[in-house]
């Protein structure tokens, strides 16, 4: 990586034609994916993303360039090309400051753990799933490790490095009976090293995945209907992520493309809904010490007792919106200009008990495990898939159902939340948007939505 003196020189050059802000982001990301299938180590792939991105801004206009040739001469050329876009009065770059300490409390970094130890852990998980039932035809366990070293420097004097360590284990079991196949999976991840195996009970999770895969073989197709839906904790939070999280990002708000534009201080949901996006939850998959613009991450209140309190804002959109950035500037890699993104987003715990919510529901769907979703912020229309569901009849969980898809509208779904339990948990996922694919937590306690459109293939005459 370039030294401070070189960075300072490049930043000064970047302001030589009229840009009023410049930033250089350098990255070296090492990753490893170890895969075990039916007990055998089938592949171990190593990856290395390496390069630098340069950003120039004048007012709210931005140009960005990136390359994997990080020599001073090469970046000088990038700066020359980019600065040609601007002309105007000259601004002066501040002197680069001193980097603040970042949290790097990793106990077992990826390259310190013997490959044989990693393989053995994963093989054990694969074997637990495979031996659960002869109908399990494929049991996959995958270890994904990432160590991203970054350095961001800008003309406001920010000079900040950070090392982010992510470890994730994906478990998938495929089952087959009478020519029909099903699959189930879990993918817990943390901002930590191989010590994740001391923190989480992967063996129980592997067993759960196998059970879920077998349950789905006998589940009935969901009959489409409009009904109350109880969304379980952890990954159930995907509803807030899609319905509200994305539409609260400055990328949508600054262009007026969100049902939440101009609604700060207004009621956007029922009284029992309070929600946060926190960039600094210890050990959380979605955490960062500093965001990709070098700003310290923070806990952002989004909604308090149903009232809209804040948006997620990056440096450039802060200028457009004339508001402060919220430490939410993120990007997949140097190949993306940063923009406002989520970290660990969740609905805060309420007072209800999970068991009581089920008991209180005469008829509905219990969405135990949720899959991915989508939202179009401009229209507010969102959807997300149910991986494992059960019918609720007379306050009891009865038959398993599969293939349910939930759809709704961001501006009214929060008003329909009529129960919030006290069992907050996080679920981990990769979120794709303008600045690429990044690790995020979704989270919530079990909640009930009084009425949702549920799709499915069942009930065909």
């Amino acid at each position, binding site marked *: 990586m370039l030294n401070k003196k070189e960075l300072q020189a490049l930043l000064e050059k970047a302001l030589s034609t009229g840009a009023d802000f410049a930033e250089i982001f350098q990255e070296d990301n090492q990753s490893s994916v170890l895969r075990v299938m039916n007990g055998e*180590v089938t592949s171990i792939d190593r990856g290395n993303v390496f390069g630098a991105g340069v950003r120039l801004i004048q007012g709210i206009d931005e140009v960005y360039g990136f*390359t994997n*040739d990080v020599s001073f001469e090469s970046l000088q050329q990038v700066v020359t090309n980019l600065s040609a876009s601007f002309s105007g009065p000259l601004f002066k770059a501040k002197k680069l400051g001193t980097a603040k300490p970042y949290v790097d409390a990793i106990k077992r970094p990826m390259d310190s753990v013997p490959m044989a130890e990693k393989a053995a852990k994963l093989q054990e998980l694969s074997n637990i799933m495979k031996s659960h039932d002869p109908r399990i035809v494929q049991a996959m366990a995958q270890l994904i490790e990432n160590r991203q070293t970054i350095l961001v420097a800008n003309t406001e004097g920010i000079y900040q490095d950070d090392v982010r360590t992510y470890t994730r284990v994906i478990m998938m079991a495929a089952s087959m009976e009478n020519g029909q196949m099903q699959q189930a999976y879990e993918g817990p991840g943390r901002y930590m090293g191989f010590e994740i195996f001391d923190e989480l009970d992967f063996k129980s999770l592997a067993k759960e995945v196998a059970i879920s895969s077998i349950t789905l073989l006998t589940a009935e197709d969901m009959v489409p209907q409009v009904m109350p839906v109880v969304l379980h904790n952890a990954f159930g939070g995907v509803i807030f992520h899609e319905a509200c999280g994305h539409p609260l990002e400055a990328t949508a708000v600054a262009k007026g*493309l969100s049902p939440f534009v101009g609604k700060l201080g207004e009621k956007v949901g029922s009284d029992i809904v309070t929600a946060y996006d926190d960039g600094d939850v210890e050990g959380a998959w979605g955490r960062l010490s500093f965001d990709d613009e070098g700003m310290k991450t923070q806990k952002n209140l989004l909604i308090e007792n149903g009232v809209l309190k804040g948006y997620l804002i990056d440096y450039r959109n802060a200028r457009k919106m004339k508001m402060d950035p919220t430490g939410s500037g993120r990007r997949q890699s140097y190949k993306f200009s940063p923009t406002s993104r989520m970290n660990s987003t969740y609905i805060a715990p309420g007072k209800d008990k999970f068991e009581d919510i089920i008991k209180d529901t005469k008829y509905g769907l219990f969405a135990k495990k949720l899959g991915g979703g989508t939202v179009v912020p401009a229209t507010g229309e969102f959807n997300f*898939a149910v991986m494992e569901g059960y019918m609720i009849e007379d306050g009891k969980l009865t038959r398993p159902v599969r293939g349910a898809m939930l759809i709704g*509208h961001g501006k009214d779904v929060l008003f329909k939340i009529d129960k919030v339990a006290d069992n907050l948990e996080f679920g981990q996922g990769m979120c794709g948007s303008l600045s690429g694919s990044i690790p995020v937590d979704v989270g919530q306690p079990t909640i009930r939505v009084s009425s949702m459109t549920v799709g*499915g293939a069942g009930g065909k005459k």
Partner: protein
Amino acid sequence: MYTNWIKLGLSKGITDLEIYAVKNRSLKLSVYQNKLDQHVQSNVESVTIRGIYQNKLSTVRFENLSDTNVSQMLDQLIENAKALTVVEPAIIYEGSPSYPEVHEDLFDFQSVPVIEKINLLKTVEQNILSCPDVSQVQTTMYQEVETKTALVNSKGLNLSRHQSYAYAYAIGVFKRGESDIQTAYDIKLAKKFSDFNPVEMAKTTIDLGVAKLGGKTIKTGSYPVVFNNEMFSDMLNVFSSIFSGEAAFRNMTPLKTKVGEKIFDAKINLINDPLHQDAFFKLPFDDEGVACQRRHVIKDGVFTGFNHNLKTAKIFNTAPTGNSFGSGIQIANFVLEPGTKGFDELIKDIEDGVLITDLVGLHAGVKTISGEFSLQAAGQKIEHGKIAYPVKMIVVSGNFFEMMNHIVGIGSDLKFNLSGVASPAVHIESLMIGGE
């Protein structure tokens, strides 16, 4: 440079190795409210090395091309290969006897001044804004990409591919009243800059958006369904992994024991057609250096065999099909053979049905191994053989394998998607629609 890396690898004890290097140059521009909103230029070279060590094949990918890093990556490749327990064929290919020739004049998009590209976007935006139903244009985007791919290995293979293309689109926001908001866009792919026609691009986007306004949900129930050509391409694309030899080997497809059997309606012909004349990217060879070839995957409803890379071909004792792309097996221009019916004729016998023109969330609402799908959709109601009114916020659900056995008709309007899948519109007997 590559030859030196191969020498270095061999000197470390790697038996055979292969370098797959991609040089990518791109320019991305976007316009918002008649101003340049985004301007991104890039130059990146990324390298993948596959190597065989003690009969085990392992892969490293990297962008730090310094000698020190390359040497470290090769050491890592050896470490990783040592830890593999599986016994599978490990092959680096000496090359196919011959390769199809691709004749294409590559346009140099850099020869067009940036200002002309920005003006194109501004014109598209202005033209869309001239429609009274448009409240704004969310973004108007142009991207040009040039890639040079080299495949060099220790068995003497030395191949290269060169591609150059650009695409542009605008996302229009259409609004009537307070609550009727819709977005629409149409991606225009171009092999040369003059292929872009801003007036036409704006018109297509406006037509798509206006057709969506006034949409409402419909009663839940089972309906005859027509997917338009783009949406059926998307469906074929997400389910294409069921034809992968790797999936068969890993028990991840229900088709494992079905080779030679009739699995779909006899009207279905699905063809891997790497050099199809309308394809955006013509593929002479795959990422392992195997010559690409035209091949029926489904012939008159009969499954003729899986798509294979070198490894799975060896396992199933057959020839590789030239389908090794990325890190797995993928389709190489996949075409559903069109029928003869025009669109109007395709829908003329539908009394009460639904035309699907939008599917949202294909990454989540599809389970390829079971064939189940359940997807947020929008489109048009079909009544008495004609388009009646727009439909939105519905969920279309069914099973891919069942659906492919209940094909009523296949249209003639074949269209390639960016994914390399081409399909005409297809009329399905019935699917469940979740609405109100």
